[in-house]
């Protein structure tokens, strides 16, 4: 097991959070976790197909960042996109229906697990190839600046959050887009979810400088590392980055140190990660940690947290029923959506 990086210090008790806001974050993390657990169950029962990449363990990043955004901000994701879509407000039933390939899915059953889209929720997509979502997110951020500065629309202060993994930080599009974002001071957050592994390639074996946040400096951009298992810490850095972006002060690179509790995809035998490493990270489960925080700070009691879990479980069960009962796309619509007029 490679020596773990020292996590940046964050003093959570000093962070101010209203009880309702704490519960909102908790609910979002529970939603992500329960949704993914249901996906695994459905996949192993042969109800769901294709490549399915689950987010278990990384919930603090999605909730901490996306819940720091406004509803008119943009979110851009990767192939591991279910939970980003949920945090962005895409209803669980429409995400589940998409995974079942149904017409009621958020991409009308044409996209699947790695291609979740919702224009209504400014969810720019799940992008299946490494790095290709970064320039698309950059384009959304450019659009905000264009509306504000070229078209004089002072209300155009939307921010874009662009998620990707440690493996992507070795891809050219990462460097090219950091350059352009800093050059043009675009309102964007580059959020690296460093879960240490690109399928079977350990991060340290793939990069000459494992501390990804340091790569921001050469572009004159703030780069911060954060404990990606602590939603309060993620939220704090995200809020600061969002405020900077919205004020026209440009992009931020956030490296969230996190871990996926399952294999790369449900097809991955996950043989390379050591038991000791997995156990060490499982012990830092972001949901358990946040539960402890909410209780310690008297922001919620056990009963309230259980109510949240029960409510979310019902929502997941309803989503599953909805997905199963929804119709498949009509064969007559095979060619629909090729062109804008379709």
């Amino acid at each position, binding site marked *: 097991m490679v020596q773990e990086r020292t996590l940046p210090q964050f003093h959570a008790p000093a962070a101010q959070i209203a009880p309702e806001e704490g519960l909102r974050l908790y609910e979002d993390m529970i939603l992500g976790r329960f949704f993914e657990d249901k996906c695994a169950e459905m996949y192993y029962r042969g109800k769901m197909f294709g490549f399915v990449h689950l987010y278990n363990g990384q919930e603090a990043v999605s909730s901490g960042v996306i819940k720091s955004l406004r509803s008119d901000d*943009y979110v*851009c994701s990767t192939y591991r996109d279910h939970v980003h879509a949920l945090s962005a407000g895409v209803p669980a039933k429409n995400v589940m229906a998409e995974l079942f390939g149904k017409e009621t*899915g*958020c*991409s*009308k*059953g*044409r*996209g699947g697990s790695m*291609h979740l*889209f*919702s*224009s209504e929720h400014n969810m*720019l*997509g799940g*992008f*299946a*190839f490494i790095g*290709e979502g*970064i*320039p*698309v*997110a*950059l*384009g*959304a*951020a*450019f*659009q905000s*600046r*264009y509306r504000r*500065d*070229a*078209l004089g629309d002072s209300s155009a202060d939307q921010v874009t959050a662009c998620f990707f993994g440690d493996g992507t930080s070795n891809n*050219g*599009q990462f460097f*090219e*887009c950091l*350059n*352009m974002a800093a*050059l043009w001071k675009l309102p964007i957050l580059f959020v690296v979810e460093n879960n240490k592994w690109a399928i079977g390639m350990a991060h340290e074996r793939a990069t000459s400088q494992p501390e990804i946040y340091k790569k921001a400096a050469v572009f004159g951009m703030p780069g911060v590392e954060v404990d990606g298992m602590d939603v309060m810490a993620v939220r704090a850095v995200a809020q600061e980055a969002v405020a900077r972006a919205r004020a026209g002060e440009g992009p931020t690179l956030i490296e969230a140190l996190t871990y996926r509790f399952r294999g790369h995809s449900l097809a991955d035998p996950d043989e390379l990660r050591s038991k000791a490493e997995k156990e060490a990270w499982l012990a830092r489960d972001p949901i358990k940690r946040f539960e402890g925080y909410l209780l310690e700070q008297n922001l919620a009691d056990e009963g309230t947290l259980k109510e949240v879990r029960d409510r979310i479980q019902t929502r997941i069960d309803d989503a599953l029923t909805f997905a199963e009962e929804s119709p498949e796309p009509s064969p007559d619509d095979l060619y*629909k*959506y*090729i*062109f*804008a*007029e*379709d």
Partner: protein
Amino acid sequence: MAETLLFNALREAIDEEMGRDDTVFVLGEDVGVYGGSYKVTKDLYNKYGELRVLDTPIAENSFTGMAVGAAMTGLRPIIEGMNMGFLLLAFNQIANNAGMLRYTSGGNYKIPMVIRGPGGVGRQLGAEHSQRLEAYFQAVPGLKIVACSTPYNAKGLLKAAIRDDNPVLFFEHVLLYNLKEDLPNHEYVVPLDKAEIVRPGKDVTILTYSRMRHHVTQAVKGLEKKGLDPEVIDLISLKPLDFDTIGASIKKTHRVIIVEECMKTGGIGAEIIASINDRYFDELDAPVVRLSSQDIPTPYNGKLETLTIVQPKQIEAAVENMVALKV
């Protein structure tokens, strides 16, 4: 009427559309301060500012992807490929994102963008700068592919491409920028999906596009002297193909010669022949003939380069042979 060079016709199209719709913007390498490598965006930077005529770093895949994101969120980007060959570097963003994303997203997003620039075999530019990428891209779902060939159609087609809600690959030819033509003073738009009948005739249908239209026109002069009457069609739209116009011509002449600058293998002509066999086989009096570039990297040497692409004499001979049924 005003005599206009082709590159200026394109510039007028962009200028008019940027004036008409403030969501239209240009991005690419040296499009702004420098005015474009072929001066298609000359002075537009001064007129519209640095965000609407955006000089990008040399990062084709990333600025192409950026245009996709801007198009998804309501802008109408025009990418200038300094040389269309560079777009190989953006193949993923053009195919996976510009081409397929609307379908993959179940209609959530539309991608109104134009990718334009010079392609084709120039004068001893070497293999990498002499590419005809239209054939590479024709299999990508969701793309429209257009090739202009005269100042008139260049201007009208580019305006139509900018107004289209789909991603349009717009091919210009590096050797046609200085063609001159009197253009109307009034505004006009040329539809993207219509082939142009360059010369009506009855003996044989010649299907061509881009610079080869002018090689065909040269060949036709010789053929006319020999009393032959070919019909010449400029395809304009390489995807989708205008089979209404192509089919009507085949029903008249029953013979087809395709003249193209792309390579023979997997080329535009290959697709046309297959489609003609599907649709009009019974109309044909002879097998379809295609004259294409050689299947080689375009050589630098001038003589070898000339041998690589189709010359007017070869077109003349092919038409004569076909009419004499010596195919």
